């Protein structure tokens, strides 16, 4: 009987650890059979491409989840960065480097302000970043009075903006690297993968990452163990802001214009990916690997459903059902759970 128990416990442990991954591969297998053309290098690349932007945002928000915070402003940071890039190139007629710098600067500044509000002004995280979200959604529209930014647009003062998106900038959204097959892997996918590996390594293997987890679990204990807790928390929001602005750069490069958008869906999808990450490998806590898998999972699901001609509303529904079921599975079994 005792050995039976041990086997059961081991099986449960396996289910918790690998259940989600198995589900992912199950989904892939199902779509491979059900939807023609699903299995191909191009299709795989495309899935990554479709989740690149939300994935990058999700990796950023993971950093704030790790320190026990939350960042609701990521979607609006991304769209603000997109508008800024377009404004810099189209209206101010600057080059790609200036545009990218401007975007990253926005990410850093917003991250610093968020961090400052939360750490020094002691505003609760949800509140501070919600305020920041509203603020940015409005702010990004003020320079053009609510117009999208594209070459040839008329500015509020009646002048015409004649700058163009530089080729170098557009390449960020459109260039593809050769990888066995020529022109296979888009820049955005490379960016996603590089950032995922970076933040994963940072969180799992460096002392800074470890301390961020400590801060998230018991701030006071981390402080009494010599950690500059405030700095770590601010850093987390800066990481989140910068990642969101990188997402915005990719968005601008893909769209080739500064599009009026709230970024709410970017926020929700990114949060979904980061939260699904809790369930991956039974981590039951925010983690970069899980976030990346979560993003890909959502990508596979949507890609497969679209290929099977499922209407958009069934996609939302199935996304919700799969999310709930997968999470019940993980958390109910693992018996941990609790942010």
């Amino acid at each position, binding site marked *: 009987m005792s050995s039976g128990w041990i086997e059961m416990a081991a099986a449960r442990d396996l289910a918790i650890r690998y259940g989600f991954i198995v589900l992912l591969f199950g989904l892939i297998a199902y779509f491979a059979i059900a939807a023609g053309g699903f299995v191909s290098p191009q299709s795989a690349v*495309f899935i990554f491409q479709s989740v690149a932007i939300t994935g990058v945002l999700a990796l950023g928000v993971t950093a704030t989840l790790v320190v026990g915070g939350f960042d609701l402003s990521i979607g609006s940071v991304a769209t603000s960065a997109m508008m800024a890039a377009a404004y810099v190139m189209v209206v101010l007629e600057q080059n790609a480097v200036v545009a990218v710098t401007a975007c990253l600067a926005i990410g850093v500044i917003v991250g610093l302000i968020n961090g400052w509000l939360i750490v020094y002004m002691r505003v609760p995280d949800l509140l501070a970043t919600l305020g920041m979200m509203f603020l940015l959604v409005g702010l990004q529209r003020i320079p053009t009075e609510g117009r999208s930014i594209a070459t040839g647009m008329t500015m509020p003062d009646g002048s015409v903006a004649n700058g163009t998106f530089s080729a170098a900038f557009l390449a960020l959204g459109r260039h593809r690297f050769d990888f066995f097959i020529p022109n296979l892997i888009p820049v955005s996918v490379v960016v996603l993968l590089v950032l995922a590996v970076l933040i994963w390594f940072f969180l799992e293997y460096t002392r800074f990452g470890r301390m961020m987890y400590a801060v998230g679990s018991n701030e006071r204990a981390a402080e009494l163990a010599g950690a500059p807790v405030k700095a770590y928390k601010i850093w987390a929001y800066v990481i989140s802001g910068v990642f969101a602005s990188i997402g915005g750069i990719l968005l601008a490069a893909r769209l080739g214009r500064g599009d009026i958008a709230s970024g709410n869906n970017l926020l929700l999808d990114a949060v979904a990916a980061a939260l699904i990450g809790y369930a991956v490998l039974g981590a039951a806590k925010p983690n970069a690997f899980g976030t990346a898998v979560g993003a890909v999972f959502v990508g596979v699901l949507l890609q497969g459903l679209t290929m099977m001609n499922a209407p958009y509303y069934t996609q939302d529904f199935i996304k919700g059902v799969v999310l709930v079921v997968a999470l019940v599975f993980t958390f109910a079994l693992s018996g941990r759970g609790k942010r």
Partner: protein
Amino acid sequence: AMAQDKPAPFDKPGAVKIALVRYLSTGDFFQAYLSGVEAQAKALGVDLRVLDSRQDAALQADMVDQAIALGVQGIIIQHGLTESMKEAAQRAVDAGIKVVAFDVNVENPKIPQIEQSDRDLARLALEQAIKDNGESWKAGYVYVAGIAPLDRRNETWVDFKKKYAGINEAAMFGTLDNPIANSVANQARSVLSANPDIKVMFAPYDEFAKGVKIAVDEAGFNKDIKIYSADISTSDIAAMREPDSAWAATAATNPAVVGQVSVRALAQLLAGEDPGHNVIVPPTLITQKDLIDKDIKNMEDLSAKLPQFAHADVAMPAWMPNPNAK
């Protein structure tokens, strides 16, 4: 025209106060519409109040009452839901206020309906598609149900499918997830990998078309597929003009003109004239070829080189100042 040439109450500048009660405001179409309204209001010398419900239909109805309380003489209702606006519009009429409605049917014989005929928009684009590709092709269609103009454009699409049996709708997709072009691009990519033999993409809303174009470019199908759409903006022009662009044609009314017409129709009512119950702003078909041949780079060029786009002679009595006239 000089102020004194105008009929009462426009003979005294600043005497007339009107309100624009909006349902939708975010996006280029609505921005351009607003600028048209503002330009015409300025040309007429009326005081314009903008009440913006930000896609809150209930609030929009309240805003009509608010406008009444503000003491305006005229109200333009821009978009909204029939059910929520019908009674509010009636209350305004009962209060002796002149009302026109753009793109929302408030089911009131006293209220002129301004329309940018969505059915005509879709028809023009689809006729061009038939002209370019013959009567039988495999199509992808971008549609989200429940949005009034898209539903009306959809009716035309359904009619065309009935009329031309050769049109084979291989996939229907669409989403309004923000940013729309990015989300639609993701869907379109999936659709293209499942149906690489699609020849025509009908995307009767320019945000959809932009997304489809991104996907077509990313898949490298830009020479094999043609996109037909509705609506236009400066960035759409740039996208259509790109070398080997798949975006073949779009049908559009100029939102600024629609805005102007809305104010003019209201002004006619206030001056005691009748603009007619249905004030239709005719659409223009804009093809890739037009844009390249005429070297049209932005909305200003479009207005300059396609005059029917720049100005509609709708609701244009002699005394009416033309805001485009310099």
